[in-house]
């Protein structure tokens, strides 16, 4: 089963990975946008997921990981989006693995982030930290790519090429965060322009995507 699959019923179709407000503000370089995310917000998410996975495997409490993720995700709109996506994924994880301690540990948190919920899925399925980080990166690229097809006049084959060409960067990002274990190690790689777009999008009354 693919966790980074648009067919997973977790409301992925409501997400553009922040692309919609970026495009509304004139952005056209989608591959560049994807790269920016991979080195900033997506890297933070992947690192938080990896550290959460370590904590789940060691049966350590997750509060500090969540706090570190939140501190490195300064946009309230982005934190809300992540928690809403976490809720959707958790709903599915509880149905799939109702007895799994890792899922129960995350479900016990107050509005867990999406990286924390993904980490619980990784813990149950035996996915390693590098695979988890790769999944976060790949899923983000695909989310932006499929939203791009709705937002811009594009040839879907070109978009598939963008995804393909971003894979080495996904891999590099995953490799960079795979060894992390402490909340303090989660990179603080803010992206003020992405955050500003996310905040603007949360306030607009015209949008196709929730975020």
């Amino acid at each position, binding site marked *: 089963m693919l966790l980074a699959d648009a067919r997973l019923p977790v409301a992925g179709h409501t*997400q553009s990975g922040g692309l919609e407000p970026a495009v509304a503000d004139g952005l056209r370089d989608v591959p560049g946008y994807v790269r920016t995310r991979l080195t900033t917000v997506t890297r933070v998410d992947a690192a938080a997921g990896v550290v959460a996975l370590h904590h789940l495997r060691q049966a350590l409490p997750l509060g500090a990981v969540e706090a570190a993720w939140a501190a490195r995700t300064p946009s309230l709109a982005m934190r809300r989006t992540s928690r809403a996506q976490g809720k959707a994924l958790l*709903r599915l994880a509880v149905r799939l693995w109702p007895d799994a301690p890792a899922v129960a540990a995350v479900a016990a948190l107050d509005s867990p982030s999406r990286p924390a919920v993904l980490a619980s899925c990784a813990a149950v399925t035996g996915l390693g930290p590098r695979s988890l980080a790769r999944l976060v990166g790949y899923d983000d690229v695909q989310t932006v790519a499929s939203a791009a097809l709705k937002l811009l006049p594009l040839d879907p084959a070109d978009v598939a090429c963008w995804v393909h060409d971003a894979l080495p960067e996904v891999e590099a990002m995953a490799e960079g965060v795979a060894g992390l274990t402490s909340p303090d190690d989660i990179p603080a790689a803010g992206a003020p322009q992405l955050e500003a777009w996310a905040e603007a999008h949360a306030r607009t009354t015209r949008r196709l*995507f929730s975020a």
Partner: protein
Amino acid sequence: MRDPFASSLGCAPRALRVGVCGPVGTGKSSLIALLCRELAADLELAVVTNDIYTDEDARMLRAAGVLDPDRIRAVETGACPHTAIRDDITANLIAAEELEADYEDLDVVMIESGGDNLTATFSPALVDVQIFVLDIAGGGDVARKGGPGIERADLLIVNKTDLAPYVGVDRDQMVTDARAARSGRPVIALSRTDRASIDELTAWVRHQLVHHRDGVLVPQDPGPMAPHSHGDHVHVH
């Protein structure tokens, strides 16, 4: 152990979830506003809207002043209105559950789909009953075109019947065609200016609520394609 009914089915205490779908502009929001006006005096209500590009539906309902604005919540569908009510209902389910959590004594949650085409219907895992709305001004032949919503939604509304004389549609013929397409399932010829039709609609909703509370309401799937029957009979409420 997995409980296949954990999320949505078989929980009689939760609110009745009523889906309202149908093509763009057929009067879904108006019908919901009408039901709010008619039922709010003695039932606790809330609404989830699925807007395509704006929060127009939610705003219109809030502006109508028929419900506390916080009881009207919009979900985005990422340009996939069909997906949001059928194949991946997560965003809608979460919105309905949050409303039910915030307002514990809710009786009915109405979910308006984004105006789509004739093939869009709700998953029975999202709504307990569904209403499909057609506009008489959309043409008298639409009822004959069929499709899962027209043929098998729990209730078909032929709406805005007051407009029939202006658009050259024979109201009674359209209703007859609709009934013929539905093997006995109910059809209501509705107009906001026709008191009797409004009473018929509210009676139908109240009847569904009684069924729901008695635990005998089993969500029916209009299905995406060919008609089907459950066992030996077609289920009619």
